[in-house]
């Protein structure tokens, strides 16, 4: 069975600094990977996804992620964060047309 590990429960960062949120997965077969964001008291919003092709995936709000098969990672990055990026970020994995399995989440806190 597939699983997802988010290595950092909290990531504090100053505004305009770069940030990386780490995600590792385990699976014996090829998987599809997602990053979702949850702003305070709101639902889940898809940031980006990796299905196939280019390993560098660009998403909304200036985020990008790189799929690394050898390291089984799918880290999320942003070169310059804003106060409004403060939120909970979830990495998720699925097999083809199957259920999504979520990581434990990383709380990104951006300070002025």
């Amino acid at each position: 069975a597939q699983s997802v590990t988010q290595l950092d429960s909290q990531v504090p960062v100053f505004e305009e600094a770069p940030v990386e949120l780490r995600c590792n997965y385990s699976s014996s077969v090829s998987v599809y990977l997602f990053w979702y964001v949850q702003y305070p008291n709101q639902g889940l919003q898809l940031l980006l996804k990796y299905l196939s092709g280019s390993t560098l995936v660009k998403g909304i709000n200036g985020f990008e992620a790189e799929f690394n098969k050898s390291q089984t990672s799918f880290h999320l990055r942003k070169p310059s964060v804003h106060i409004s990026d403060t939120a909970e970020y979830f990495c998720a994995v699925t097999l083809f047309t199957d259920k999504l399995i979520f990581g434990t989440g990383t709380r990104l806190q951006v300070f002025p």
Partner: protein
Amino acid sequence: SAVISQKPSRDICQRGTSLTIQCQVDSQVTMMFWYRQQPGQSLTLIATANQGSEATYESGFVIDKFPISRPNLTFSTLTVSNMSPEDSSIYLCSVGRGGALNYGYTFGSGTRLTVV
């Protein structure tokens, strides 16, 4: 992507009672899922709602506690039965279609349940 209407958005319930949460989708979808998000935690899949057959439950979740209906391809309900304070969570429905991998699974806005 699909648009999901989930209701109620929040409720406060007495222990021992039941609450039914509705999930309506604006298009036919193959798969519907129900998740629970306990306070400060990640999303845990409760079950997959199958149209025309019984739901498929994940380990730790049982039909008697979380009965699910899926009468057609656009609608599903989740009931939280005989509630206790430990059931206080956000419950979310999610849908995926044949194109789910292209559009990304879509989530409802959630039902914030408080059991007192």
